């Protein structure tokens, strides 16, 4: 038995035009019926295996995405769905957009498309679950070879207040990050207009 038989998905919309989100929901609907692969669209990061991100990341959503990623138990996989989540897409040069999802969390799978097609999404999930198995396998091998004596993937973790209130999870920090980044539209003249 493998972990890949029951991938539970957490879907989060960074700041997209909602095109990809509609496609994601269409994939979960009876017509494509991803539940036949055991996929469940859960709303809870603590139950999720795959973090499915759509849309570019802006200064408002960056801390949220970070926290969602932190709250997910290991092993976990991040999927960037749609061109905006891959590298920012059409919103890339907006004053408040940091870029793709890989600016804030490590992305394992990039699924391009505008909007991303359900077929591509299913293919992406298939590849994501393969990575999920790989991550678990790597952990097992590391333990066998003695690099690691504790199975950190299965070790119980206690969350503390710091996990929720760290510096990088404040919207102000992300705001600063966008302002210091060299993107057009951040000049003072642009704001005055």
């Amino acid at each position, binding site marked *: 038995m493998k972990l890949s038989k029951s991938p539970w998905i957490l879907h989060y919309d960074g700041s997209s035009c909602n095109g990809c989100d509609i496609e994601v929901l269409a994939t979960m609907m009876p017509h494509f019926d991803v539940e036949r692969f055991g996929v469940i669209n859960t709303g809870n990061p603590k*139950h999720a295996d795959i973090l499915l991100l759509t849309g570019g990341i802006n200064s408002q959503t960056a801390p949220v995405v970070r926290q969602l990623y932190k709250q997910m138990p290991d092993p976990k996989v991040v999927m960037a769905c749609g061109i905006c989540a891959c590298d920012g897409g059409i919103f890339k040069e907006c004053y408040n957009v940091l870029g793709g999802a890989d600016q804030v969390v490590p992305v394992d799978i990039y699924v391009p498309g505008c909007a991303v097609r359900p077929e591509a999404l299913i293919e992406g999930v298939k590849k994501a679950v393969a990575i999920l198995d790989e991550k678990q396998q790597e952990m097992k091998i590391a333990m066998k070879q003695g690099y690691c004596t504790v199975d950190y*993937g299965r070790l*119980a973790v206690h969350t503390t207040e710091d996990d929720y209130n760290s510096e990088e999870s404040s919207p102000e920090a992300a705001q600063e990050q966008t302002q210091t980044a060299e993107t057009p539209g951040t000049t003072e003249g642009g704001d005055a207009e």
Partner: protein
Amino acid sequence: MAVSIVVRVILYLLLGPVIGGLLEGIDRIISARMQGRQGPPLFQPFYDVYKLMHKQTIVVNSIQVLFITAYLIFTIFTGALFFGGGDMLLVFFSLSMSEVMLVLSAYSVNGPYSAMGAQRELLQMMCYEPMMLLLAIGFYVAQGSFMVNDLIGADRPAVIALPGMLIGFAFVLIIKLRKSPFDLSTSHHAHQEMVKGLTTDISGRDMGLVELAEWYDATLMMGIVGMFFVTREPVSYLFAILACSVVFFLITLIDNTHPRVKAMRMFGLAWGVILVCAGTNLLILNLIGK
């Protein structure tokens, strides 16, 4: 006699989760077919629990682990008591004890969604507890004993004397198994207004234990439905299994055709059905008996 009790308890310990898991798998397939899709494989619940057992466990408050383990142990204890032929009253008391443990685990994490789920779970308990007590009393009035061992050795099936109780219990079962329209505290379906309610902050191995306890619970509930039909004759077990299948199918059908109701509506409905069906049944039984 003592040996047969041990055998029955061991059989329950081994087969309880298998039957419960298969019931959930069948439930998911039937639901999928009702919605016009293929649905997951039959063994999907087992894959899910295997995965949960092999994932990292995020513990918010250490006491949470104790409560969840206690929930599982009390649920298994309840089932073992029932299938071992124990006292019906004790079965229902320890059943509410196990539920209390789950509620406490949800309260202990201090999360807003968990707390809301726990409050609603308490309300759900309030809805089905009267039925459980009435059922034990009904069995006593009809068959003259609280002991499951005596009840299964009866001359005629209990359902002849307790048809109202069966209807009331089947109704209450929807609340107990947390199926729509009464899945207020936590839902098997994603995206409800309070994330996952009761189980929001339970993850990894702990969540696997909760699922396992729910399987044991489902097996126990089906056992109680079967109790209405079991007599001294071996053929009655066939009727019991048939009745369980019908009740289970009806619950799945209602789950798929009814949207969630508000808490107070559930409260009124549940107590109304219990009073009308089970209460009247008990009243008539008392009048005829005297």
